[in-house]
Protein backbone atom coordinates (compact mmCIF):
# COMPACT_ATOMS: atom_id res chain seq x y z
CA UNK A 1 0.00 0.00 0.00
CA UNK A 2 2.66 2.46 1.09
CA UNK A 3 4.87 1.45 -1.81
CA UNK A 4 2.07 2.06 -4.28
CA UNK A 5 1.40 5.50 -2.87
CA UNK A 6 5.07 6.39 -2.76
CA UNK A 7 5.69 5.24 -6.30
CA UNK A 8 2.82 7.30 -7.61
CA UNK A 9 4.49 10.34 -6.06
CA UNK A 10 7.08 10.22 -8.85
CA UNK A 11 4.53 9.79 -11.57
CA UNK A 12 2.52 12.66 -10.12
CA UNK A 13 5.57 14.89 -10.27
CA UNK A 14 6.18 13.76 -13.83
CA UNK A 15 2.58 14.38 -14.82
CA UNK A 16 2.55 17.87 -13.37
CA UNK A 17 5.88 18.78 -14.95
CA UNK A 18 4.55 17.78 -18.34
CA UNK A 19 1.42 19.85 -17.78
CA UNK A 20 3.32 22.93 -16.73
CA UNK A 21 5.84 22.71 -19.55
CA UNK A 22 2.85 23.08 -21.86
CA UNK A 23 1.33 25.91 -19.91
CA UNK A 24 4.34 27.97 -18.85
CA UNK A 25 6.91 28.44 -21.59
CA UNK A 26 9.12 30.42 -19.21
CA UNK A 27 9.61 27.31 -17.09
CA UNK A 28 10.34 24.94 -19.97
CA UNK A 29 14.08 24.81 -19.37
CA UNK A 30 13.82 24.22 -15.64
CA UNK A 31 11.03 21.67 -15.96
CA UNK A 32 12.60 19.91 -18.92
CA UNK A 33 15.69 19.31 -16.83
CA UNK A 34 13.59 18.43 -13.78
CA UNK A 35 11.76 15.78 -15.81
CA UNK A 36 15.06 14.13 -16.69
CA UNK A 37 16.18 14.37 -13.10
CA UNK A 38 12.96 12.78 -11.86
CA UNK A 39 13.84 9.53 -13.62
CA UNK A 40 17.24 9.51 -11.94
CA UNK A 41 15.71 10.38 -8.57
CA UNK A 42 13.11 7.67 -8.83
CA UNK A 43 15.86 5.15 -9.55
CA UNK A 44 17.73 6.34 -6.45
CA UNK A 45 14.53 6.11 -4.43
CA UNK A 46 13.90 2.56 -5.64
CA UNK A 47 17.47 1.46 -4.97
CA UNK A 48 17.27 2.86 -1.43
CA UNK A 49 14.14 0.80 -0.81
CA UNK A 50 15.89 -2.29 -2.14
CA UNK A 51 18.87 -1.95 0.17
CA UNK A 52 17.15 -1.22 3.51
CA UNK A 53 19.74 1.36 4.37
CA UNK A 54 20.94 2.19 7.90
CA UNK A 55 20.83 5.93 8.77
CA UNK A 56 24.61 5.97 9.15
CA UNK A 57 25.02 4.73 5.58
CA UNK A 58 23.05 7.53 3.93
CA UNK A 59 25.95 9.83 3.10
CA UNK A 60 28.17 7.04 1.79
CA UNK A 61 25.37 5.53 -0.28
CA UNK A 62 24.49 8.94 -1.70
CA UNK A 63 28.11 9.65 -2.61
CA UNK A 64 28.67 6.25 -4.21
CA UNK A 65 25.37 5.53 -5.85
CA UNK A 66 23.27 8.67 -6.17
CA UNK A 67 25.74 11.49 -6.80
CA UNK A 68 27.38 10.00 -9.92
CA UNK A 69 23.95 9.40 -11.45
CA UNK A 70 22.80 12.93 -10.67
CA UNK A 71 26.00 14.36 -12.11
CA UNK A 72 25.57 12.34 -15.26
CA UNK A 73 21.98 13.49 -15.76
CA UNK A 74 22.89 17.07 -14.95
CA UNK A 75 25.76 17.24 -17.41
CA UNK A 76 23.63 15.54 -20.00
CA UNK A 77 20.41 17.50 -19.56
CA UNK A 78 21.08 20.43 -17.27
CA UNK A 79 22.20 23.98 -18.00
CA UNK A 80 25.75 24.35 -19.25
CA UNK A 81 27.01 26.29 -16.28
CA UNK A 82 25.80 23.63 -13.86
CA UNK A 83 27.36 20.85 -15.89
CA UNK A 84 30.70 22.61 -16.02
CA UNK A 85 30.65 23.35 -12.29
CA UNK A 86 29.75 19.76 -11.46
CA UNK A 87 32.60 18.36 -13.51
CA UNK A 88 35.02 20.50 -11.55
CA UNK A 89 33.43 19.88 -8.20
CA UNK A 90 33.41 16.15 -8.61
CA UNK A 91 37.17 16.04 -8.89
CA UNK A 92 37.77 18.74 -6.36
CA UNK A 93 36.01 17.96 -3.16
CA UNK A 94 35.10 14.90 -1.20
CA UNK A 95 31.47 14.32 -2.23
CA UNK A 96 30.77 12.36 0.91
CA UNK A 97 31.58 15.46 2.94
CA UNK A 98 29.23 17.66 0.91
CA UNK A 99 26.38 15.24 1.54
CA UNK A 100 27.22 15.08 5.26
CA UNK A 101 27.11 18.85 5.49
CA UNK A 102 23.78 18.91 3.69
CA UNK A 103 22.38 16.39 6.18
CA UNK A 104 23.81 18.49 8.99
CA UNK A 105 23.62 22.24 9.18
CA UNK A 106 26.66 23.21 7.18
CA UNK A 107 26.70 25.95 4.60
CA UNK A 108 27.08 24.88 1.00
CA UNK A 109 27.56 26.72 -2.26
CA UNK A 110 24.65 26.72 -4.70
CA UNK A 111 26.14 23.95 -6.81
CA UNK A 112 27.07 21.80 -3.82
CA UNK A 113 23.59 22.25 -2.38
CA UNK A 114 22.05 21.25 -5.68
CA UNK A 115 24.18 18.14 -5.95
CA UNK A 116 23.64 16.98 -2.36
CA UNK A 117 19.95 17.64 -2.52
CA UNK A 118 19.21 16.14 -5.92
CA UNK A 119 21.06 12.98 -4.91
CA UNK A 120 20.16 12.62 -1.25
CA UNK A 121 16.60 13.98 -1.24
CA UNK A 122 15.14 10.81 -2.82
CA UNK A 123 17.09 8.69 -0.34
CA UNK A 124 15.49 10.49 2.60
CA UNK A 125 12.12 10.21 0.89
CA UNK A 126 12.57 6.45 0.70
CA UNK A 127 13.45 6.03 4.38
CA UNK A 128 10.99 5.86 7.24
CA UNK A 129 10.68 8.77 9.62
CA UNK A 130 12.89 7.26 12.34
CA UNK A 131 15.70 6.62 9.93
CA UNK A 132 15.39 10.13 8.49
CA UNK A 133 15.47 11.51 12.00
CA UNK A 134 18.62 9.59 12.87
CA UNK A 135 20.37 10.58 9.65
CA UNK A 136 19.81 14.33 9.94
CA UNK A 137 20.47 17.32 12.17
CA UNK A 138 18.26 20.32 12.78
CA UNK A 139 15.83 21.82 15.27
CA UNK A 140 12.49 20.07 15.74
CA UNK A 141 9.91 22.80 16.20
CA UNK A 142 6.80 23.84 14.29
CA UNK A 143 8.84 25.79 11.76
CA UNK A 144 11.13 22.86 11.05
CA UNK A 145 10.41 19.46 9.61
CA UNK A 146 9.29 17.00 12.31
CA UNK A 147 11.22 14.24 10.55
CA UNK A 148 14.56 15.80 9.65
CA UNK A 149 14.59 19.30 11.16
CA UNK A 150 14.94 20.94 7.75
CA UNK A 151 13.41 24.28 6.82
CA UNK A 152 10.26 24.41 4.70
CA UNK A 153 10.55 24.64 0.94
CA UNK A 154 7.00 25.64 0.35
CA UNK A 155 3.63 26.08 1.90
CA UNK A 156 0.36 24.74 0.58
CA UNK A 157 -3.32 24.84 1.34
CA UNK A 158 -4.76 21.36 1.15
CA UNK A 159 -7.97 20.55 -0.66
CA UNK A 160 -11.01 19.92 1.42
CA UNK A 161 -13.81 17.50 0.85
CA UNK A 162 -16.46 20.20 1.10
CA UNK A 163 -16.79 23.52 -0.68
CA UNK A 164 -17.46 25.50 2.45
CA UNK A 165 -14.49 24.20 4.38
CA UNK A 166 -11.13 25.88 4.18
CA UNK A 167 -8.45 23.26 4.63
CA UNK A 168 -5.30 23.47 6.72
CA UNK A 169 -2.06 24.95 5.62
CA UNK A 170 0.96 22.67 5.44
CA UNK A 171 4.65 23.26 5.10
CA UNK A 172 6.73 20.87 3.02
CA UNK A 173 10.32 20.11 3.95
CA UNK A 174 13.15 21.26 1.68
CA UNK A 175 15.20 18.23 2.65
CA UNK A 176 12.97 15.17 2.94
CA UNK A 177 9.63 16.41 1.50
CA UNK A 178 7.69 15.59 4.67
CA UNK A 179 4.67 17.85 5.13
CA UNK A 180 3.39 19.13 8.46
CA UNK A 181 0.47 21.35 9.44
CA UNK A 182 1.22 24.98 10.20
CA UNK A 183 -0.75 28.06 11.23
CA UNK A 184 -2.35 29.83 8.33
CA UNK A 185 -1.35 33.32 9.37
CA UNK A 186 2.21 33.10 10.63
CA UNK A 187 5.65 33.48 9.08
CA UNK A 188 7.13 30.05 8.40
CA UNK A 189 10.60 31.46 8.98
CA UNK A 190 10.47 33.61 12.13
CA UNK A 191 6.99 32.84 13.45
CA UNK A 192 5.69 36.43 13.15
CA UNK A 193 1.92 36.46 13.71
CA UNK A 194 1.17 40.17 13.47
CA UNK A 195 -0.70 40.23 10.17
CA UNK A 196 0.32 43.78 9.33
CA UNK A 197 3.87 42.46 9.00
CA UNK A 198 2.80 39.49 6.88
CA UNK A 199 2.39 40.48 3.27
CA UNK A 200 0.54 38.25 0.89
CA UNK A 201 1.48 39.11 -2.65
CA UNK A 202 -1.17 37.72 -4.89
CA UNK A 203 -1.91 38.46 -8.47
CA UNK A 204 -4.89 40.58 -9.43
CA UNK A 205 -7.61 38.16 -10.43
CA UNK A 206 -6.75 35.50 -7.88
CA UNK A 207 -9.08 36.36 -5.01
CA UNK A 208 -12.60 35.05 -4.60
CA UNK A 209 -14.40 38.24 -5.62
CA UNK A 210 -12.34 38.54 -8.77
CA UNK A 211 -12.56 34.89 -9.67
CA UNK A 212 -16.32 34.77 -9.38
CA UNK A 213 -16.61 37.97 -11.33
CA UNK A 214 -18.38 41.08 -10.26
CA UNK A 215 -19.97 40.33 -6.92
CA UNK A 216 -18.08 43.12 -5.33
CA UNK A 217 -19.09 46.70 -5.80
CA UNK A 218 -16.67 49.05 -7.54
CA UNK A 219 -14.29 46.21 -8.26
CA UNK A 220 -12.01 47.33 -11.05
CA UNK A 221 -12.72 45.34 -14.17
CA UNK A 222 -15.61 43.57 -12.51
CA UNK A 223 -18.03 41.73 -14.71
CA UNK A 224 -17.48 38.39 -16.27
CA UNK A 225 -15.67 39.49 -19.42
CA UNK A 226 -13.60 42.32 -18.09
CA UNK A 227 -12.35 40.66 -14.92
CA UNK A 228 -8.61 40.37 -14.55
CA UNK A 229 -7.23 36.95 -15.37
CA UNK A 230 -4.48 35.70 -13.12
CA UNK A 231 -1.69 33.62 -14.60
CA UNK A 232 -1.01 32.06 -11.23
CA UNK A 233 -4.40 31.95 -9.55
CA UNK A 234 -3.26 29.23 -7.15
CA UNK A 235 0.12 30.67 -6.22
CA UNK A 236 1.14 33.51 -3.99
CA UNK A 237 4.15 34.94 -2.26
CA UNK A 238 3.87 34.89 1.52
CA UNK A 239 6.33 37.52 2.66
CA UNK A 240 7.33 38.66 6.12
CA UNK A 241 8.41 42.24 6.79
CA UNK A 242 9.95 41.22 10.10
CA UNK A 243 12.54 38.74 8.84
CA UNK A 244 12.39 39.64 5.12
CA UNK A 245 11.86 36.03 4.09
CA UNK A 246 9.23 34.63 1.81
CA UNK A 247 7.78 31.29 0.91
CA UNK A 248 5.64 30.40 -2.07
CA UNK A 249 2.20 29.07 -1.29
CA UNK A 250 0.27 26.67 -3.50
CA UNK A 251 -3.49 26.66 -3.02
CA UNK A 252 -4.67 23.19 -3.99
CA UNK A 253 -8.29 24.21 -3.64
CA UNK A 254 -7.70 26.55 -6.58
CA UNK A 255 -5.91 24.01 -8.70
CA UNK A 256 -6.48 20.42 -7.70
CA UNK A 257 -4.00 19.15 -10.29
CA UNK A 258 -1.11 21.08 -8.81
CA UNK A 259 1.76 19.18 -7.21
CA UNK A 260 3.23 21.73 -4.79
CA UNK A 261 6.87 20.81 -5.25
CA UNK A 262 6.59 21.05 -9.04
CA UNK A 263 4.54 24.23 -9.13
CA UNK A 264 6.96 25.84 -6.72
CA UNK A 265 9.90 24.99 -8.98
CA UNK A 266 8.15 26.43 -12.00
CA UNK A 267 6.96 29.69 -10.47
CA UNK A 268 10.03 31.64 -11.55
CA UNK A 269 8.33 34.99 -12.22
CA UNK A 270 7.04 35.05 -8.66
CA UNK A 271 10.52 34.37 -7.32
CA UNK A 272 11.91 37.19 -9.42
CA UNK A 273 9.16 39.42 -8.14
CA UNK A 274 9.89 38.57 -4.51
CA UNK A 275 13.58 39.14 -5.02
CA UNK A 276 12.83 42.57 -6.41
CA UNK A 277 10.95 43.33 -3.20
CA UNK A 278 14.09 42.50 -1.25
CA UNK A 279 12.76 39.21 0.09
CA UNK A 280 14.79 36.00 0.33
CA UNK A 281 13.23 32.56 0.07
CA UNK A 282 13.43 30.57 3.29
CA UNK A 283 15.15 27.81 1.34
CA UNK A 284 16.18 27.94 -2.31
CA UNK A 285 14.54 25.10 -4.20
CA UNK A 286 16.19 22.21 -5.98
CA UNK A 287 16.91 24.36 -9.03
CA UNK A 288 18.38 27.13 -6.90
CA UNK A 289 15.52 29.64 -7.03
Amino acid sequence: MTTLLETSKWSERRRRSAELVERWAFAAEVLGFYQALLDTQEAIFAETRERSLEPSQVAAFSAEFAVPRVIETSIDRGPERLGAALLERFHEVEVDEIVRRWLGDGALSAVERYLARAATGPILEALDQNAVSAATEGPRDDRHCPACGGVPQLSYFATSAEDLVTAHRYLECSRCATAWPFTRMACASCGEEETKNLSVFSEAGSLEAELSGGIVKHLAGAGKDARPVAQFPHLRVDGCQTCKHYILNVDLSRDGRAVPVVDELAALPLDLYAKELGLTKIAPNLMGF
Partner: protein
Amino acid sequence: MKTATLTGRGGTWVAAKARPNGSATSLAYGVIEMASTVSRQDFLKLTGIGIGALAFSELGFDLAKATAIKRELRIANATESRSICPYCAVGCSMIAYTRPDTNGQPQLLQIEGDPDSPVNEGRLCPKGATALQLASSNRRVEHPMYRAPGATAWQQLTWDDMLDKLARRIKDSRDRTFVAVDKKGNLVNRVDGIAFTGGATFSSEEGYFAAKVMRGLGLVYLEQQARV
Protein backbone atom coordinates in the same frame (compact mmCIF):
# COMPACT_ATOMS: atom_id res chain seq x y z
CA MET B 1 32.31 42.91 -28.01
CA LYS B 2 29.07 40.96 -27.76
CA THR B 3 25.88 43.01 -28.06
CA ALA B 4 22.29 42.22 -27.27
CA THR B 5 19.09 44.07 -27.99
CA LEU B 6 16.47 44.34 -25.29
CA THR B 7 12.91 45.31 -25.97
CA GLY B 8 10.64 46.35 -23.14
CA ARG B 9 8.05 48.89 -22.13
CA GLY B 10 8.84 52.21 -23.68
CA GLY B 11 11.56 51.38 -26.13
CA THR B 12 14.43 49.31 -27.30
CA TRP B 13 17.97 49.43 -26.03
CA VAL B 14 21.20 48.01 -27.10
CA ALA B 15 23.37 46.56 -24.39
CA ALA B 16 26.83 45.22 -24.81
CA LYS B 17 29.12 43.02 -22.83
CA ALA B 18 32.04 45.18 -21.86
CA ARG B 19 34.69 45.34 -19.22
CA PRO B 20 33.89 48.29 -17.02
CA ASN B 21 36.55 50.22 -15.14
CA GLY B 22 39.27 48.38 -16.94
CA SER B 23 38.65 45.33 -14.77
CA ALA B 24 39.81 42.25 -16.55
CA THR B 25 37.85 39.72 -14.52
CA SER B 26 34.31 40.98 -14.08
CA LEU B 27 31.96 41.05 -16.99
CA ALA B 28 28.94 43.30 -16.87
CA TYR B 29 26.33 44.62 -19.19
CA GLY B 30 27.18 48.17 -20.16
CA VAL B 31 24.69 50.52 -21.69
CA ILE B 32 25.52 51.91 -25.08
CA GLU B 33 22.29 53.56 -26.00
CA MET B 34 19.16 54.26 -24.04
CA ALA B 35 15.75 55.47 -25.16
CA SER B 36 15.00 58.88 -23.69
CA THR B 37 11.46 57.95 -22.65
CA VAL B 38 12.67 55.65 -19.92
CA SER B 39 14.49 56.70 -16.81
CA ARG B 40 17.80 55.17 -15.92
CA GLN B 41 16.18 53.45 -12.99
CA ASP B 42 13.59 51.80 -15.23
CA PHE B 43 16.32 50.74 -17.54
CA LEU B 44 18.30 49.21 -14.74
CA LYS B 45 15.21 47.36 -13.60
CA LEU B 46 14.58 46.10 -17.11
CA THR B 47 18.06 44.88 -17.62
CA GLY B 48 18.48 43.73 -14.05
CA ILE B 49 21.78 45.52 -13.64
CA GLY B 50 20.76 47.65 -10.71
CA ILE B 51 19.43 44.93 -8.47
CA GLY B 52 21.97 42.29 -9.22
CA ALA B 53 19.53 40.05 -11.05
CA LEU B 54 21.19 38.28 -13.94
CA ALA B 55 20.04 37.00 -17.26
CA PHE B 56 21.05 33.57 -16.00
CA SER B 57 20.44 32.02 -12.63
CA GLU B 58 23.16 30.77 -10.35
CA LEU B 59 22.93 27.26 -11.76
CA GLY B 60 22.79 28.62 -15.31
CA PHE B 61 19.10 28.72 -16.20
CA ASP B 62 18.06 31.35 -18.71
CA LEU B 63 15.77 33.80 -16.94
CA ALA B 64 14.82 35.98 -19.89
CA LYS B 65 11.30 34.58 -20.38
CA ALA B 66 10.49 34.48 -16.69
CA THR B 67 11.68 38.06 -16.33
CA ALA B 68 9.40 39.15 -19.14
CA ILE B 69 6.41 37.48 -17.45
CA LYS B 70 7.35 39.00 -14.11
CA ARG B 71 7.19 42.47 -15.64
CA GLU B 72 3.60 41.86 -16.77
CA LEU B 73 2.38 40.58 -13.42
CA ARG B 74 -0.15 42.72 -11.67
CA ILE B 75 0.52 41.83 -8.08
CA ALA B 76 -0.74 43.61 -5.02
CA ASN B 77 -0.08 43.21 -1.36
CA ALA B 78 -3.14 41.60 0.15
CA THR B 79 -3.63 41.68 3.89
CA GLU B 80 -5.16 38.85 5.82
CA SER B 81 -7.15 39.65 8.93
CA ARG B 82 -9.01 37.46 11.39
CA SER B 83 -12.65 38.21 11.88
CA ILE B 84 -15.78 36.63 13.29
CA CYS B 85 -18.91 35.86 11.33
CA PRO B 86 -21.64 38.29 12.39
CA TYR B 87 -24.53 36.06 11.44
CA CYS B 88 -25.12 33.81 14.41
CA ALA B 89 -24.13 32.72 17.89
CA VAL B 90 -21.80 29.98 16.68
CA GLY B 91 -19.25 32.74 16.15
CA CYS B 92 -17.26 31.12 13.36
CA SER B 93 -13.80 32.49 12.80
CA MET B 94 -13.00 33.92 9.37
CA ILE B 95 -10.03 35.09 7.37
CA ALA B 96 -10.70 38.27 5.42
CA TYR B 97 -8.48 39.36 2.54
CA THR B 98 -8.24 43.00 1.64
CA ARG B 99 -6.24 44.61 -1.09
CA PRO B 100 -5.87 48.30 -1.86
CA ASP B 101 -8.07 49.44 -4.75
CA THR B 102 -6.94 51.95 -7.36
CA ASN B 103 -7.42 54.77 -4.85
CA GLY B 104 -5.39 52.98 -2.21
CA GLN B 105 -8.47 52.19 -0.13
CA PRO B 106 -8.65 48.66 1.29
CA GLN B 107 -11.07 46.58 -0.68
CA LEU B 108 -12.48 43.38 0.76
CA LEU B 109 -12.09 40.64 -1.83
CA GLN B 110 -12.30 37.30 -0.08
CA ILE B 111 -13.62 35.77 3.11
CA GLU B 112 -13.14 32.17 4.12
CA GLY B 113 -13.29 30.02 7.22
CA ASP B 114 -10.24 30.01 9.46
CA PRO B 115 -8.85 26.46 9.57
CA ASP B 116 -6.91 27.24 12.74
CA SER B 117 -10.03 28.15 14.71
CA PRO B 118 -11.16 25.54 17.24
CA VAL B 119 -14.72 26.85 16.78
CA ASN B 120 -15.25 26.03 13.12
CA GLU B 121 -11.97 24.49 11.88
CA GLY B 122 -12.23 26.24 8.55
CA ARG B 123 -15.91 25.60 8.05
CA LEU B 124 -18.58 28.18 7.27
CA CYS B 125 -22.28 27.58 6.79
CA PRO B 126 -23.75 28.75 3.46
CA LYS B 127 -24.76 31.97 5.09
CA GLY B 128 -21.37 32.75 6.58
CA ALA B 129 -19.76 31.78 3.30
CA THR B 130 -21.54 34.69 1.63
CA ALA B 131 -20.36 37.20 4.24
CA LEU B 132 -18.29 38.96 1.59
CA GLN B 133 -21.53 40.19 0.06
CA LEU B 134 -22.65 41.68 3.34
CA ALA B 135 -19.78 44.10 3.09
CA SER B 136 -19.55 44.79 -0.59
CA SER B 137 -22.19 43.21 -2.79
CA ASN B 138 -22.93 45.11 -5.95
CA ARG B 139 -26.50 43.84 -5.69
CA ARG B 140 -27.04 45.76 -2.48
CA VAL B 141 -30.28 47.79 -2.66
CA GLU B 142 -29.18 51.28 -1.82
CA HIS B 143 -32.51 53.11 -1.70
CA PRO B 144 -35.82 52.38 -0.03
CA MET B 145 -38.01 50.51 -2.50
CA TYR B 146 -41.77 50.43 -2.34
CA ARG B 147 -44.28 48.16 -3.99
CA ALA B 148 -47.84 49.36 -3.56
CA PRO B 149 -50.56 46.80 -2.76
CA GLY B 150 -51.49 45.00 -5.98
CA ALA B 151 -48.68 46.62 -7.95
CA THR B 152 -46.19 44.50 -9.86
CA ALA B 153 -43.33 46.98 -10.01
CA TRP B 154 -41.08 48.44 -7.38
CA GLN B 155 -40.78 52.12 -7.00
CA GLN B 156 -37.88 54.05 -5.50
CA LEU B 157 -38.74 56.30 -2.56
CA THR B 158 -36.73 58.82 -0.62
CA TRP B 159 -35.81 57.98 2.96
CA ASP B 160 -38.13 60.74 4.19
CA ASP B 161 -41.09 59.39 2.25
CA MET B 162 -40.36 55.89 3.45
CA LEU B 163 -40.02 56.87 7.08
CA ASP B 164 -43.28 58.81 6.91
CA LYS B 165 -44.98 55.80 5.37
CA LEU B 166 -43.61 53.46 8.03
CA ALA B 167 -44.54 55.77 10.88
CA ARG B 168 -48.03 56.14 9.48
CA ARG B 169 -48.53 52.35 9.15
CA ILE B 170 -47.14 51.62 12.58
CA LYS B 171 -49.34 54.25 14.15
CA ASP B 172 -52.45 53.02 12.30
CA SER B 173 -51.82 49.34 13.06
CA ARG B 174 -51.03 50.11 16.68
CA ASP B 175 -54.19 52.19 17.13
CA ARG B 176 -56.29 49.52 15.47
CA THR B 177 -54.93 46.54 17.42
CA PHE B 178 -53.98 48.05 20.77
CA VAL B 179 -55.25 46.00 23.73
CA ALA B 180 -55.38 47.98 26.95
CA VAL B 181 -57.21 45.39 29.06
CA ASP B 182 -57.41 41.67 28.27
CA LYS B 183 -60.45 39.45 28.49
CA LYS B 184 -59.82 38.65 32.14
CA GLY B 185 -59.69 42.32 32.97
CA ASN B 186 -55.92 42.55 33.39
CA LEU B 187 -54.28 45.82 32.37
CA VAL B 188 -51.88 44.77 29.56
CA ASN B 189 -51.34 47.77 27.19
CA ARG B 190 -50.08 45.65 24.31
CA VAL B 191 -50.06 45.70 20.52
CA ASP B 192 -51.20 42.42 18.96
CA GLY B 193 -51.14 43.58 15.33
CA ILE B 194 -47.41 44.13 14.79
CA ALA B 195 -44.52 41.74 15.05
CA PHE B 196 -40.84 42.62 14.86
CA THR B 197 -37.97 40.51 13.62
CA GLY B 198 -34.33 41.52 13.96
CA GLY B 199 -31.89 40.41 11.31
CA ALA B 200 -28.67 38.53 11.85
CA THR B 201 -26.43 41.45 11.00
CA PHE B 202 -27.86 43.60 13.77
CA SER B 203 -25.16 44.76 16.13
CA SER B 204 -25.77 44.39 19.86
CA GLU B 205 -26.48 48.11 20.12
CA GLU B 206 -28.98 48.04 17.29
CA GLY B 207 -30.67 45.03 18.85
CA TYR B 208 -30.86 46.73 22.24
CA PHE B 209 -32.29 49.88 20.69
CA ALA B 210 -34.84 48.00 18.60
CA ALA B 211 -36.06 46.01 21.60
CA LYS B 212 -36.50 49.21 23.65
CA VAL B 213 -38.42 51.02 20.91
CA MET B 214 -40.67 48.05 20.13
CA ARG B 215 -41.43 47.30 23.78
CA GLY B 216 -42.14 51.00 24.21
CA LEU B 217 -44.78 50.70 21.50
CA GLY B 218 -46.27 47.73 23.32
CA LEU B 219 -45.15 44.97 20.94
CA VAL B 220 -44.96 41.50 22.42
CA TYR B 221 -44.06 39.54 19.30
CA LEU B 222 -40.36 40.31 19.24
CA GLU B 223 -37.95 37.95 17.58
CA GLN B 224 -34.26 38.25 16.99
CA GLN B 225 -31.95 35.86 15.26
CA ALA B 226 -29.50 34.69 17.87
CA ARG B 227 -26.05 36.18 17.31
CA VAL B 228 -22.72 36.78 18.93
